[in-house]
C-alpha cells in the first residue's frame, strides 16, 4: 500500500510551464502537508536558476538543499517541504538515484535545524517525482527518510482542484521573554548564538508542554478540530498557549557572567490544517512547531547578519546593543487560497526586497499590495547609550575576594530562599 498524493491542479500547470521553458534538467521542491492517510501537495517551486545550472544538464545538489532550507523558513505551520521533483528528457529510472540523494539531503538539512523534537505520529515519507519532459508522464515514489536503507516505494499522484479551499487556520500571538547570561570570557556573536540556541531549546520544550486552548477551550486529546469540510463554517481560529515557568536546578543558582542577552517581544504564529477530519492535537502540534520555528529562524537570521558584520561590532565597543528581529510578512498563494507563505523583513529593508525574495525562492509573482504586513508591527529600536540606567553605574571594582563572598552569600541566600519557601514543595522529593 503506497502513499497517495493529492495535488493541487495549479501544480500541474506549473510543472507543464517548466517543461516548456527550459532544456536540460529542472529540479524543484514540492510543498504541502502530510497526514497519516494521505498527503496534500499545494504548490511547487523550481530551484532558482544559477549560472551553472542554466549552462548544463547537471543538478547542483548543494544548491537544491540550500534552497530547500531557505524555503522551509518561509513556510508557516502545517506546510513543509514534502519532497523533490525533477524534470528531464530521460527515463524516470535514470534519475531515481539522484532523486533519492536529493530527498535525503533535503530532509537531513531541514531537520538538523529544527528545535522541536519529532513526534511518534509524524509521517516520515518524502516524495520523489520525476516528470518526463516529452511525454509529461509523472513517476512518483516515496522514501522513508527515517530509514537510511529504505528503498523507493510506489505512490499515487492525483491532481485535484480546490485541494486547500476548506483548509482551516489556527493562529496566535506568542510573547517571548528570555534572559540569558553570557559566559565571562566569551561574549562574541558565536558564543551568543550557542547560548541563545540552548535557551531556545528549553523554551521550545516549555511551549511543547504548554496547554493549548482553541477558541478559549481546552479540547480533548482525540477531539476533532472544529471546521473542516462543511461550507460556510468559519475556518480561522485563535489559540491561546499557557506555559509553566521552568524549573531551575539548584546547582546553577549563581554564576559569573560577562554580560547577558535578552529577547523580548511577540511573534505571530499560525498553522494550516487540511480539511480531512483533522484532530485538535494536530492543530496544537503544528501551531507550536511554527511558534518555535519562527523565533528560532529570526534569531538565526539576525545572528548570521551579526557574524558577517562582526568587524563593525568589535570596533564600536558599546556595552549595550539592541537589534530588532525581522518581522513576519505573509503572502497568499493565489492558486491555493487561503494558504499563505511568509518572509521576514528587517527594519532596514523595503517591501520590494520581500517581493524579490518571494520570486526567487518560491517563484511567486506578488505585488506589494498582496502582502499582509499587519500581523506584526516592526520592532522599535530604542538604542541608547549606557548612561541612562542607574544600576549600570560604573562602580569602582572592589577587591576580588569581596566580590566572590558577596556572590556566594547571595547564591546561598537565594538557594536558602528557594529551599525554605519550598517547605511544602520539596517534601515530595
Amino acid at each position, binding site marked *: 500500500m503506497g502513499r497517495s498524493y493529492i495535488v493541487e491542479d495549479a501544480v500541474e500547470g506549473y510543472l507543464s510551464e517548466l517543461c516548456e521553458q527550459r532544456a536540460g534538467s529542472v529540479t524543484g521542491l514540492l510543498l504541502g502537508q502530510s497526514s497519516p492517510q494521505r498527503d496534500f501537495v499545494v504548490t511547487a517551486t523550481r530551484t532558482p536558476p544559477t549560472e551553472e545550472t542554466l549552462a548544463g544538464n547537471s543538478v547542483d545538489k548543494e544548491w537544491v538543499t540550500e534552497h530547500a532550507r531557505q524555503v522551509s523558513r518561509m513556510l508557516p505551520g502545517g506546510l513543509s517541504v514534502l519532497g523533490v521533483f525533477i524534470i528531464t528528457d530521460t527515463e524516470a529510472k535514470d534519475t531515481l538515484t539522484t532523486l533519492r540523494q536529493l530527498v535525503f539531503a533535503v530532509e537531513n538539512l531541514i531537520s538538523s535545524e529544527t528545535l522541536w523534537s519529532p513526534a511518534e505520529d509524524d509521517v516520515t515519507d518524502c516524495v520523489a517525482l520525476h516528470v518526463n519532459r516529452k511525454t509529461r508522464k509523472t513517476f512518483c515514489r516515496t522514501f522513508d527518510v527515517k530509514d537510511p536503507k529504505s528503498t523507493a516505494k510506489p505512490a499515487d499522484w492525483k491532481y485535484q482542484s480546490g485541494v486547500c479551499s476548506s483548509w482551516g487556520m489556527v493562529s496566535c500571538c506568542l510573547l517571548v521573554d528570555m534572559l540569558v547570561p553570557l559566559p565571562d570570557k566569551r561574549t562574541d556573536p558565536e558564543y551568543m548564538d550557542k547560548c541563545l540556541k540552548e535557551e531556545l531549546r528549553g523554551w521550545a520544550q516549555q511551549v511543547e508542554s504548554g496547554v493549548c486552548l482553541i477558541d478559549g477551550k481546552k479540547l480533548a486529546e482525540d477531539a476533532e478540530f472544529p471546521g473542516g469540510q462543511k461550507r460556510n463554517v468559519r475556518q480561522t481560529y485563535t489559540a491561546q498557549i499557557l506555559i509553566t515557568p521552568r524549573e531551575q536546578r539548584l546547582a546553577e543558582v549563581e554564576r559569573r557572567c560577562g554580560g547577558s542577552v535578552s529577547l523580548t517581544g511577540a511573534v505571530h504564529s499560525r498553522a494550516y490544517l487540511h480539511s480531512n477530519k483533522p484532530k485538535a492535537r494536530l492543530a496544537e502540534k503544528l501551531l507550536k512547531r511554527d511558534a518555535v520555528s519562527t523565533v528560532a529562524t529570526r534569531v538565526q537570521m539576525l545572528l548570521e547578519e551579526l557574524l558577517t558584520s562582526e568587524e563593525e561590532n568589535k570596533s564600536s565597543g558599546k556595552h549595550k546593543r539592541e537589534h530588532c528581529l525581522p518581522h513576519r510578512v505573509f503572502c497568499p498563494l493565489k492558486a491555493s487560497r487561503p494558504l499563505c507563505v511568509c518572509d521576514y523583513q528587517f527594519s532596514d529593508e523595503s517591501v520590494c526586497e520581500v517581493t524579490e525574495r518571494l520570486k526567487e525562492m518560491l517563484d511567486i509573482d506578488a505585488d506589494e499590495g498582496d502582502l499582509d504586513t499587519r500581523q506584526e508591527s516592526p520592532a522599535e529600536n530604542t538604542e541608547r547609550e549606557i548612561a541612562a540606567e542607574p544600576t*549600570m553605574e560604573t562602580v569602582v571594582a572592589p577587591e576580588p575576594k569581596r566580590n566572590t563572598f558577596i556572590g556566594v552569600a547571595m547564591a546561598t541566600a537565594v538557594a536558602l530562599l528557594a529551599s525554605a519557601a519550598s517547605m511544602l514543595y520539596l517534601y515530595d522529593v
Partner: protein
Amino acid sequence: MVVTDSSDSGTILRVRGPLEFRCQLDSTDALLMHKVISRTFATLHSQVKSESCVLTVCESPVIIWPNKGVYVTPEEITPNTLCEDIHQWIQTDEQESAGKRSSKKKSKKSSAASVINLSLMMEATKTGPLSAPILRRTLQKSHFLSTTLPMDCVVRITCSDTIKDAFECLMEALTHQLCEMEKVTLQHIKGTTLLTHRKELHQQFELQGDWPYFRRANAFHFPNELYKDGYLRNPHMVLTHPTLDNGKVYLVQGIYSYHHYMQDHVDDNGWGCAYRSLQTICSWFQQQGYVERAVPTHREIQKALVDVGDKQGSFVGSRQWIGSIEVQAVLNQLLEVTSKIMFVSQGSELASKGRELANHFLTEGTPIMIGGGVLAHTILGVAWSETTGQIRYLILDPHYTGAENLQVITDKGWCGWKGPDFWDQTAYYNLCLPQRPKVI
C-alpha cells in the same frame, strides 16, 4: 496558616507552580543589590497580578483567569458559581471524558477536607498585532542569579463561597507568599539562619519551644498525596484503644513508618527483628524533622556498630542479632540521639513499669525498642491505670512478613494492644528509650 476543623468537610484550594527568578547583579554594593532583587520581585508581583496569570485545575478542563474579572472556561462555570462545584469537573480514574461527571456518580463525602489542586501558569499569548522581538546584548561583568520560586499556597473555602470570592482570596495568599519570600531573601543577604526564622514563627503562633513544627519534614501531608516510599504510616491510628478503669492511654507522638521482615528485598526473617524496630525508630526521627538522614539499611546499621568499635569488621553482611544496647549505640552514632536503657530482670516485672512508660510517652513521645528472650518488638504506647495497675501495651511487631496491608496488619494483631502476658514472664528484657532532642 490554615485552620482546619476536623469535623467540617470543607474544601481546600491549593495552588502550586514555579516562578522564574532571574536577575543580574553587576555591583557588590548591598544597597544596589537590594534594589535589583526588589525590582525582580516587583516584576514577579506584576506577573502574578497580570491578566496573563492563569490557574488551571488539575485533572480537569477548568481554567481560571483570576485577574480578568475571574474569567472561567468552560462557559458553564461563571465567577458566581459555587467554588465547590469545581469538584464535579475533576476527572477521577473512573471516567475518561473531560466533561462534567454525571449527577448519578456523586462521590461519597469523606470526613477529611477535600483538596482542589491548581497549577500556576502564565498565558504566553496575547491579542495581536504586537511588535516583533528585540534582541538586547549587554556586556558587563556581573553575577547572574537564576532560580525558581516554588509557589505553594492554600486557602480554605466554605460551601457558600463563590469562585470569585475564593480566587480573590487565593491570589492574596499568593501575593503574600511572594512578599514573604522577598523578605527572607533580603534578610539572608546578611547571613541569618533559618533557625532564627523558625524561632520567630514559633513566637508568632505561640508554639512550644521544643517541638520542631516548622521543619520541612513536618509539612502538612495532603490527603491525596501518596507516600512515595510505600511504607505504612502510623498503623496504630485505626485501632480502638483499650479503656481501663481510671486508665489513660499514652501514645507515641508524631509519625513513624512500619518496618518489618522481608521489606526492601532483604530476607531477614528470623534475625532482623531488632534491626526493623530500630528502623521504625529512625523513621520517627526523620519524619519529625530531627534528622534528614534516610532510614538506615541493615548494612548501614552493622557498619555503624563496627565504626563505634562495638563489633568486629566481619559483622557487616552477617545475620547476627542485635539488642537494645546496640540500638542505643546506632541511634547515637547515626542520628546523634541519646537513649535511656531500662532493664527488667523478669518479664513479669514489666507490668509494674506503667508509670515510667507513661512518662516516656508524655515527655519524649518516641517509639521504644524492647528486646528480650529471642524476640525484639517496638512499643508504641501504653494504657495504664494508676489506681488499679492494669496495663496494656501497644505493640508493633517487626516479625510480620507480608505486604503493606493495613487491614491484615491490624486484624491479625501485628500492630495491636497486648496484655502483660504477652511477655515471656521469666526472661529478662532490655528497653531502649530514645530521648527526643529538645530543639526546634
